[in-house]
């Protein structure tokens, strides 16, 4: 009963083995039918399956048909040869094709022929397996001596060689292949070992073949390890969907076994086996699935990471490229060298680009002119030709017949593969084609250069591949760079305009300076002659003049003195208006200053028989830094006016400290000033009385005084005159007390000391300064 059961357990085993062997073989083969290793593998699997199944089936005919048993046994033996030979050839091609010399290849061919002969002889003759001997466990196969002399050695040597090759391969591989080989090696190794042991060695020792089955069934090790190798390491590159299929098939097979059982007991045993298989199978599936998912996730993550890194890399490269161009823009102020540098750098930064031509709009001639060309490493002759073409190209702006001008008018990129489409007309088509072919340009793109509303021109990029093949990233890069170029052009133009304006202003400034000096000099020179000669006549009595002439000449003299004052005042006003006055500071005590003024004007006051006095304060007044001459001028102006308008009484000058300033007061007992007139006084050319007076002013005195005081950061004003006037006028001004000499920003500047010669055509014409000045300023 038990042996019967065992026998049926055996049937499960055989079934399993056969199914898995065939299935494994198929899976491997179908994975890549062309792979020779896979062919050998399926061969091996099939032969192994044949061994086991033929051995198993042979037992059923022991008692009924001995001849069939013998035949099946012979088939078993033959399959052994088949298995050995397929294993041998498999080892030669897995995991890598071992390169063999011609001789070894011939040897292999010989071996193959021998194996085939052996197979035929074994199966179809009784050369090796002569007969069947009945025994208590079934039977033994009676083998001839030839079996031991030819068959066994041949098979064993093949097996051993295969194993040796496998071991060598194992040590020659690395990484995952090594792992895969390990399983393969283990599988094969154990199987072969047990097979050999139980089919050859032990029978000889025990003198019976009862245990030979164990050798056959050890094929399960081989199958098991291979399957495991597939699952764990992707042996034979098989994806693990096979695990599920194997499990399903096995379960099905075992289920069939259950229904084929001869008794309930057997059925129950087989059911238990089936349950175990199913349970084991599914947990296997689950763990395998988890592992696969993990592996796939990691793979996806790795891919994502790689892609992200690549993107970042790409972006960094683009940024650094743009940075390079920004730096060029910032480094350069002049447009031509800057643009040249940019377009020289472009081909180095963008692989697809061979060179760039920049064309800019010339507003004056209303044409698009070639401006610059990348200095690439074309042959000299070719580069010169390009340069010539760029230099000589001038396309009228209204042209819309080529892609270059279309880019300009539409403000959109224009793409194409023919240079002639971009520049002809007006360029000659043949010339364009020639240039393109010689330079090996396959594609082109024209990108407009503009910023805000201004259209500067167009940049044409020559590309290594047809435009359709150029990556969008490269095109975006070129667009970005064109943008930079536009901004650069805008900036350079603005800079140049600014420079021109600045230079013009500087020239204008200098001209004004020169004008003042020259005008002053020119006007004073004839005046000096007038006054000089008059003085010689009138003061010194040189030359004879009668009384009438003398009287007239006196009037001339008076007028000339007035003219002198006028000229001086006019020039002063001119200087003040243009901010050309710069103060020359000196330290002085107010008393000294006032006193000197009084000394100067005493003559006049005495002549009018009025007093001119200084009312000193009790305390000593502090010294201060002022432009002594100019403040003196202010005092002279005020006191002089006071004297002019006073007939009786006199003029009083006072000075005192008021907080952080010095306050000067000039008061008189003259006619006074009406309230409504007071406001107009400090303006230019204001005069209250147009009396004929030898000391008649120019009308600018008070204006100049006001400006001079204000230049000192002081204030000047009229103290509210008494209502209706008549009681005199009071003028006041303050000056901040300055204890240290203020920094002179114009230290060292001298007057214009050289009279411009008439050969300096653009400068002031000394004979006619006014006219030439007006001409310049216009």
């Amino acid at each position, binding site marked *: 009963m038990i042996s019967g059961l065992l026998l049926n357990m055996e049937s499960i085993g055989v079934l399993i083995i056969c199914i898995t062997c065939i299935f494994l073989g198929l899976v491997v083969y179908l994975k890549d039918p062309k792979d020779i290793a896979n062919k050998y593998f399926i061969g091996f699997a099939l032969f192994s399956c044949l061994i086991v199944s033929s051995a198993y089936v042979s037992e059923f005919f022991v008692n009924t048909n001995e001849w069939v048993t013998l035949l099946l046994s012979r088939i078993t033996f033959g399959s052994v040869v088949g298995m050995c030979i397929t294993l041998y050839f498999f080892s030669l091609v897995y995991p890598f094709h071992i390169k063999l010399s011609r001789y070894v290849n011939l040897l292999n061919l010989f071996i193959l022929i021998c194996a085939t002969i052996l197979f035929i002889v074994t199966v179809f003759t009784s050369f090796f397996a002569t007969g069947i001997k009945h025994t208590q466990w079934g039977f033994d196969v009676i083998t001839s001596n030839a079996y031991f002399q030819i068959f066994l050695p041949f098979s064993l040597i093949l097996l051993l060689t295969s194993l040796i090759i496998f071991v060598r391969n194992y040590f020659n591989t690395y990484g995952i292949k090594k792992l895969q080989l390990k399983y393969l090696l283990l599988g094969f190794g154990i199987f072969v070992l047990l097979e050999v042991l139980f089919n050859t060695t032990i029978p000889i020792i025990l003198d019976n073949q009862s245990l030979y089955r164990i050798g056959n069934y050890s094929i399960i090790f081989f199958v098991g390890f291979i399957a495991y190798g597939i699952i764990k390491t992707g042996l034979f590159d098989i994806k693990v969907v096979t695990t599920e299929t194997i499990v399903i098939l096995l379960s099905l097979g075992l289920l069939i076994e259950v229904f084929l059982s001869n008794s309930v007991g057997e059925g129950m045993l087989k059911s238990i086996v089936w349950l175990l298989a199913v349970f084991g199978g599914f947990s296997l599936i689950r763990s395998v699935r988890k592992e696969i998912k993990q592996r796939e996730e990691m793979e996806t993550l790795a891919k994502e990471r790689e892609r992200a890194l690549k993107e970042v890399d790409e972006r960094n490269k683009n940024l650094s490229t743009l940075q390079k161009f920004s730096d060029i823009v910032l480094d350069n102020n002049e447009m031509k060298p800057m643009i040249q540098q940019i377009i020289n750098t472009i081909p180095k930064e963008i692989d697809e680009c061979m060179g760039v031509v920049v064309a800019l709009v010339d507003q004056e001639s209303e044409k698009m002119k070639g401006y610059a060309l990348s200095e690439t490493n074309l042959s000299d002759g070719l580069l010169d030709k390009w340069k010539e073409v760029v230099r000589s190209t001038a396309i009228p702006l209204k042209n819309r017949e080529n892609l270059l001008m279309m880019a300009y008018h539409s403000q959109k990129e224009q793409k194409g593969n023919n240079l002639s489409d971009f520049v002809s007309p007006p360029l000659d088509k043949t010339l364009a084609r020639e240039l393109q072919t010689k330079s090996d340009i396959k594609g082109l793109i024209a990108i407009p250069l503009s910023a805000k509303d201004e259209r500067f021109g167009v940049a044409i990029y020559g590309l290594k591949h047809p435009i359709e093949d150029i990556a969008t990233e490269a095109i975006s890069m070129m667009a970005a760079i064109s943008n930079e170029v536009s901004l650069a052009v805008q900036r350079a133009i603005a800079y140049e305009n600014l420079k021109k304006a600045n230079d013009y202003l500087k020239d204008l400034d200098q001209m004004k300076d020169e004008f003042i000096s020259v005008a002053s000099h020119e006007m004073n020179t004839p005046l000096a002659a007038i006054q000089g000669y008059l003085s010689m006549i009138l003061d010194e009595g040189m030359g004879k003049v009668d009384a009438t002439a003398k009287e007239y000449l006196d009037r001339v003299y008076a007028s000339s003195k007035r003219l002198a004052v006028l000229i001086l005042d006019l020039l002063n006003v001119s200087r003040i208006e243009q901010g050309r006055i710069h103060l020359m500071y000196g330290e002085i005590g107010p008393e000294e200053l006032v006193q000197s003024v009084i000394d100067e004007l005493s003559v006049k006051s005495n002549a009018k028989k009025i007093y001119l006095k200084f009312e000193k304060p009790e305390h000593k007044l502090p010294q201060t830094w002022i432009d002594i001459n100019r403040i003196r001028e202010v005092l002279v102006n005020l006191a002089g006016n006071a004297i002019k308008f006073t007939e009786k009484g006199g003029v009083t000058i006072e000075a005192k400290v008021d907080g952080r300033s010095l306050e000067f007061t000039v008061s008189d007992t003259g006619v006074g000033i009406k309230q409504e007139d007071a406001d107009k006084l400090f303006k230019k050319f204001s005069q209250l009385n147009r009396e004929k007076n030898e000391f008649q002013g120019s009308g600018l005195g008070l204006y100049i005084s006001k400006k001079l005081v204000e230049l000192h950061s002081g204030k000047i004003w009229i103290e509210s005159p008494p209502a209706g006037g008549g009681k005199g006028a009071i003028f006041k001004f303050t000056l901040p007390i300055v204890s240290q000499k203020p920094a002179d920003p114009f230290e060292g500047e001298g007057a214009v000391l050289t*009279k411009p010669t008439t050969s300096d055509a653009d400068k002031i014409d000394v004979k006619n300064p006014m006219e030439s000045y007006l001409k310049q300023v216009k």
Partner: protein
Amino acid sequence: MRPQAHKRVMLVEDDETLAEMYAIRLKAEDFDVMRAENGKVALEDIPRFKPDLILLDIMMPEMNGIEVLKYLRHQKETRTIPIFILTALSQGRDRTVGLEAGADDFIIKSETMPKEVVQKVKVALDAASVAHNF
């Protein structure tokens, strides 16, 4: 004291009228006057004329007065000759620059009448001859 030869005054002035005026006035006082219309001519003529005093206009074409002044002060022969600068401008700057460059006096043409000019010349020459004699 030695009998005084006529003192020679070099007048460097580009304006004809003015130059004539000073010349008349100087000659009226027995001075020998030579006129140069600009700095270049002056530098050529001075070694030959050997003036006792130089009246030097500041604003002149080709070489301005200050340059001439500096040059003259550099030369041994002309280092000690009294030099007056003449200017039409009453700007303070001219005065300082001139005096610093080595002028002995500074005359504003439109303010100083010929009589005064000649007076200054006389004073300077008297002083110079006194110094010379010692």
